[in-house]
């Protein structure tokens, strides 16, 4: 620490990785040892990392931010409950599975889903945040589709719910584009010889949903039974649907 700039009116907060100090002489928060960089980007908080002022325990970080915003009148705690409830109860992979099952049983619906998914989704009331623009891509014997977001974690929330932890992991984001077959093998998926892998890196606001191939031996099943065969991972591309008669 630069003790020459430090006196008793300064306030320093130590965190796991950093020290942030309030400099009484300048009235600014600074990271110790990180002189302010005037040409830095607005978000480059070399000289003031507000996030490092939060408690070290993540649950307490949430509590701190929630408390501040509730006290300011900017957050309705009941709204937070409602958001959590929506994604825990109403919105999840069952939405996407319903679309897939119907596409398997209804050729006209399948065609529309593959060519104008937004229309279908809007008509069925499945639109919403992180699913404003959807493209459905079809697996065939020649092509297997796999969806990733290397830059963040874009995912079709209204159709599949909140993404699983692995989808958001560094490993999946880093490797799915370069070695998709190795990643698929980790998920237990081995493709037929001659099947090409088509990876979709979701770099914009288009969200991709995979339409998996209908399992053999499911000819007589209705949509409800078919939907039970459709796994979340089969709609991301890291899995395949269940076989007939093996519904989990």
């Amino acid at each position, binding site marked *: 620490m630069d003790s020459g700039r430090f006196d008793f009116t300064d306030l320093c907060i130590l965190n796991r990785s950093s020290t*942030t100090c*309030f400099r009484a002489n300048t009235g600014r*928060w600074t990271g110790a040892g990180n002189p302010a960089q005037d040409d*830095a980007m607005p*978000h*480059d*908080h070399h000289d003031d*990392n*507000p*996030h490092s*002022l*939060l408690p070290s325990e993540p*649950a307490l*970080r*949430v509590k701190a*931010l*929630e408390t*501040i*915003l509730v*006290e*300011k*009148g*900017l*957050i*309705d705690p009941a709204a*937070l*409950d409602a*958001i*959590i409830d*929506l*994604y*825990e109860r109403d919105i*999840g992979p069952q939405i996407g599975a319903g679309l897939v099952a119907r596409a398997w049983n209804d050729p006209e619906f399948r065609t529309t889903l593959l060519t104008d998914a937004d229309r279908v989704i809007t008509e069925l009331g499945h*639109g919403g*945040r992180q699913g*404003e*623009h959807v*493209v459905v891509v079809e697996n065939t014997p020649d092509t297997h589709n796999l969806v990733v977001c*290397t*830059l963040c974690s874009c995912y079709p929330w209204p159709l599949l719910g*909140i993404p*699983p932890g*692995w989808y958001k*992991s*560094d*490993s999946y*984001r*880093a490797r799915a584009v*370069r070695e998709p*077959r190795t990643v698929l093998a980790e*998920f237990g998926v081995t493709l037929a010889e001659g099947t*090409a892998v*088509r*990876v979709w*890196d*979701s*770099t*914009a*606001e*288009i969200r991709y949903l995979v339409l998996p191939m209908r399992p053999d031996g499911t000819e007589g099943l209705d949509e409800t039974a078919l939907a039970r065969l459709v796994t979340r991972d089969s709609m991301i591309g890291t899995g395949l649907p269940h076989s007939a008669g093996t519904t989990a």
Partner: protein
Amino acid sequence: MTRIHDMGGRFGDGPVPREDDESRTFAKDWHGRALALTVAAGALGKWNIDASRHVKECLPPADYARFGYYEKWLAGLANLLVEHGIASPEEIATGRSDAPAPDDLAARRLDAARVKTALRSGGPSARDSSDGPAFALGAQVRTSAIAGNRMQNGGHTRLPAYAAGRVGTVVLHHGAHVFPDSNAHFNGEAPQHLYTVSFAAGDLWQHAESPHDEVRLDLWEGYLEPA
């Protein structure tokens, strides 16, 4: 040029970590709270989705690497609150508010009754454009040699480094969409035509797993030139 988040193709990460219990939407209760808090704070309208992505990308690399997903969200939220004058560093440090928010901002609070409607309407990024697309389906295009924001040094961009300076084929056209390189810095939506471009895996990677594989990315017209 790149930031820590731009990790596509990176070596060194181990196997994809799988959850022990996938039956829970949120592995920990605070995960759901962090998500809901971020969504509700975003509804105040002080920033946009591009800015909220960029603030996470701007975390110090050491923090980005050690933070879990929702820890990045919380860090980004804290930094946005301070940057936009909603909370002070002192308030972040104490976890208490010193003063109520201005009435006009408080009036934008997302109330519980509005949650479903707000999340069901979302925030579409497609925009009308009077200009036609520069590239037709099937066109060969080359991406910018450098994956970087042309207007802001170190600014937000959505061209990953692994796809910079590569030649691919336009396979989809999505119309015009808000341009993140501009919008993230509050310089206007500046919509541009958006395309899906297909690249042969062998044109991206030294040791592609199969010559038949491809990677497709959504890229704005400004990232592309005729090849």
